[in-house]
């Protein structure tokens, strides 16, 4: 029986997502009133949204959704009462009422049947648990990058989103910006010939916010439920710079500059290569970890990844030869792109125009809008969960290779590291009781 043959992850992806990734999707808007609940669209004219994690980024996303007439932000959730109060004020002021509900515990927000979708912007160690719970509850999800805190959590999130047919948009918003799309179309259409190497430049060091006194261990403030904030992560005593913003420099909660940024520039690199669903087969890397101080993520790093088609990717932070952004190097030239800038060789590529005979990739000009449109049409967003997972994978593998100090070989189909028990153990981080996925 042909169907009885083993269906590995690659086969599955080829059977499903690859089609929509290659196609240009124009989500069509359906009047939301026409859709029933588990068709996942609101019973009213609007998509009802709950926002979990309303610090800086979460509030920014929330403001984006507030601007849309067909979205209603109905609830906000945070373990910091100050964040919560601020977010409710913004929402209530916008709608000129006092209807926005505050939640301390994301499970209560997710349990609300009238909420269609959530916007999630919690620290990385708090991504997988609420995402899986939201997917199981039938919510669509706009989730911040990096997708996951470790590779296994990313896989579990993708499986849940797939299993429950949820619409997912990752906050990798560079895909909705014209110069990134143009650069990728140049590469996809062979304007630089066959690509053999990609350079991905990311920031180095730690962009630390706060003052020295914020590093002094002390009791958590009353407004913060610190134990809930730690959640599945190991206990560590509180100091103010432990949490908001600076969590990303601590590997228990984030992944340093490397993981913070792979979801942008590796994501774009994959997009240009047409390898949204691919992952490297060999990864090695060196990292310089701070030997002292509160932060333990690498301050300088260089990762070399090899893909099965022979493409080599160098991901680096703190090396002058790898410029910030994504650079594809082909047999006939190169293209480099970052926020607000693009360059190419030959220069004439920068004036290139594409006609209908050229490959045109998915076009979105508004990342938040693209999510809402797809919630209504059930079409694939520009950055679905599976793509974000694959964008993240070289970062996770690079981190493991750096810590182990050796080359690792990866099987993209089974998502396991080949012949390396220790490295495989590091694909997943145990969670502090009672949390689990």
């Amino acid at each position, binding site marked *: 029986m042909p169907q009885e043959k083993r*269906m590995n992850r690659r086969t599955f992806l080829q059977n499903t997502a690859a089609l929509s990734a290659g196609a240009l999707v124009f989500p*069509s808007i*359906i009047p939301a009133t026409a859709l029933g609940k588990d068709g996942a669209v609101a019973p009213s004219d609007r998509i009802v949204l709950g926002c979990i994690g309303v610090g800086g980024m979460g509030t920014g996303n929330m403001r984006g959704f507030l601007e849309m007439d067909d979205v209603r932000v109905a609830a906000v959730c945070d373990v910091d009462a100050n964040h919560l109060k601020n977010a409710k004020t913004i929402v209530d002021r916008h709608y000129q009422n006092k209807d926005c509900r505050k939640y301390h515990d994301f499970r209560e927000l997710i349990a609300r049947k009238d909420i269609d979708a959530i916007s999630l912007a919690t620290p990385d160690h708090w991504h997988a648990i609420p995402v899986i719970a939201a997917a199981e509850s039938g919510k669509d999800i706009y989730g911040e990058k990096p997708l996951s805190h470790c590779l296994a959590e990313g896989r579990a999130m993708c499986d849940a989103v797939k299993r429950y047919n949820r619409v997912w948009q990752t906050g990798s918003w560079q895909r909705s910006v014209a110069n990134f799309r143009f650069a990728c179309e140049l590469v996809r259409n062979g304007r630089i010939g066959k690509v053999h190497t990609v350079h991905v430049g990311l920031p180095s060091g730690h962009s630390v*916010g706060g003052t020295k006194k914020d590093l002094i261990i002390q009791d958590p403030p009353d407004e913060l439920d610190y134990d809930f904030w730690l959640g599945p992560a190991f206990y560590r005593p509180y100091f103010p710079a432990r949490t908001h913003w600076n969590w990303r420099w601590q590997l228990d909660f984030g992944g340093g500059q490397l993981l913070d940024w792979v979801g942008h520039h590796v994501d774009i690199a994959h997009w240009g290569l047409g390898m949204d669903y691919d992952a490297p087969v060999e990864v090695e890397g060196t990292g*310089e970890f701070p*030997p*002292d101080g*509160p932060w333990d993520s690498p*301050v300088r790093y260089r990762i070399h990844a090899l893909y099965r088609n022979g493409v080599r990717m160098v991901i680096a932070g703190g090396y002058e030869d790898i410029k910030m952004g994504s650079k594809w190097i082909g047999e006939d030239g190169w293209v480099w792109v970052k926020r607000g800038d693009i360059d190419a060789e030959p220069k004439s590529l920068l004036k290139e125009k594409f*006609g209908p005979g050229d490959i045109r990739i998915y076009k979105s000009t508004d990342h938040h809008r693209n999510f809402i449109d797809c919630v209504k049409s059930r079409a694939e967003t520009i950055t679905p969960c599976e793509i974000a997972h694959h964008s993240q994978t070289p970062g996770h593998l690079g981190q493991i290779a750096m810590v182990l100090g050796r080359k690792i070989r990866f099987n993209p189909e089974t998502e396991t590291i080949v012949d390396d028990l220790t490295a495989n153990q590091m694909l997943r981080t145990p969670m502090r009781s009672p949390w689990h996925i």
Partner: protein
Amino acid sequence: MEINTMRRKWRIRVGIAAVIVAVLTGFALGQAAKGTEPASKIMDRLESALAKAADYDFGSSRVCLSEIEQIVQIVLNSPGLKESVEKRFIAFLRSDATIAGKQFICRKLSVVGSGASVPELSRMLKSEETYDMALYALTRIPSSRADRVLRERIPKVSGRFRLGLVNALGYRRDSKAVSLLETLIGEDPETTGAALSALGHIATPEAAEVLARVMEEADGPVRIEAMNAYLKYADRLVEDGRIEQALTIYRRFAVPDRVRAAALTGMIHARPGDARKIILETLRGDDSRMKTVALGHLSRCVRIENLKKIAKERNRLESHNQVQLLTALGVRGDRSVLPLVVEAVESEDEAVRVAAVKALAFLGDATTVDLLARLAAGEGVECEAARESLDRIHGEEVDEKIVNMLAGSDPEIRVELLRSMGERVMRSGIDTVLAYTRNSDRRVRVQAVRTAGLIAAPERLPDVIDALVRAESEPERQEGEKAIVAVARNIEDQENQARDILAAMPNVTVPETRASMLHVLGWIGDSNGLPVVRKSLDSDDPVIRKAGIKAMSDWPNSAPMEDLWRVAQAEGQKVDGVLSLRGYIGLVRRDRERPNEEKVGLYRKAFDLAKGLEEKRLVLSALGENRSLAALEMAGTIMDTPDLQPEAEVAVFQVARRIWRDHPGESAGLLEKVVEKTDNEELRAEAEDLIGRIREEM
């Protein structure tokens, strides 16, 4: 979440120092990793580091921990040392070392530990203080002794201590834990949920049997949790190739909706070859929600061929499902359904019509050009979608059809066809397009010029210039200017980009057209054009003089700066003088080559010359971008001018934010003045924050 775009109130500069220390450490590690360090020396280093780690507490120096991390990395690449290091770690855990030190060692044991570590970790499970760290290590250590310890401990504990053990067994996929976990179902909701989830992860037939029983017997949330876990098991069966067993499970699910939807998803993934049949059956049923799920798969599942049967179901579907169907048909790009999609363009439902038109972008061909052009020229809701589809439909014959249609079409449709020729980059159609720049209808002429700007090669620039010369109205001239600039900029030699324009100018007598050509020279900025622009400043015709000033103001470098200054000085408050001064300020502002201090000197000149408040405000706005002490001081002095105080305060803040690290005293001093004087509450708060930050660092 990207880091550079977030607003930060304060920051500590530790990155550079950390990099330096890390580089040095990295060097030392490199030496050891090369295997040049004898084992005895490594163990000595470990002893020394562990002795210090025994006193480590949260918040104190991590240097000893970093040393241990380096040694662990060496050990992981030199297996001979692993056993000795593990023994030392176990001894450390038995010692009276600090809790923080033990937590760190447990993390390391989770990657270097073996069954030998299990007894000590098991002992630590019994203490509330060391439970989490021991469980962390036990969860990862690849030894059946760890499984046994976890199982044996479960009956002896409760609450979060039991939950952690249950979760760990699920994480480890311990098949021997199934019966134990079954006994926990029905206890408190958290324990029941954890046990069901663990069984879903374990995913053996025995675990599945337990889950199936719970599904039969339980109700409410417990039943749903069991279903979710059971679906995980079915998904794993599909991955393992045991499709029939998986299908049996998927078929069992009837309620609730979301689980049923997941089951339908599972069935399609399990048998992608049957996807068409499953989708058809679902569409012919009467469950609108499941239709939504099925149609979601239609756009994603590769192995669906012959879509006609599915497409023919459209009329039976509700409007929103029709939209989904048409969107999916478009994504799939199977042109056999084209007639059915064209039929949908006639639908009475607005949303369905738009979806059909959008789908034509992928399915359309030469036969749909007429339809799309008509819709694009119309006023219906489909108009924008029709334009986009017309621009994207594939095929040589499509281009040919567009050109052929031009001659016999109404002006409105002709405009759309010409517009699309530009978007489709139909360079071979340039002669046709240029011919339409002479059309009797102004709308057609304007669009033809616009399209020429998009597709004309540099050698056709004289033809595009000719279109401008013939222009009869301001909109035509404006389009002509843009088109000429677009084409001229494609000339490789930048010093030759104005050549054709300069050649054409002597024959141009209409002032408005000459003015347009001067504008073009300004945007291009070819130095060969500058003498002509200069000469225009001496013209008696105000239209030409104004065009010359505009051209100089738009110049891409500072070459005409002195010319503008002379006019500004000579003409003062007259229109030419004011426009020249504004242009001058703009050129200084955009000059990337000039040092900041020198720019401030020029701003000072402009500020002193300006009579109007608008020009003075323009200077303040430019000052705010300047990164120099001179800019700060100039903005600071203007704060005393009542009419300009608000703008000057903002400029002071903007400059201070850029230079305070180099000039903390001066920045803080003027910021305090802002705080004291300003009526702008937001600015005051920002300034106070910045003052606080400066004082922290001073």
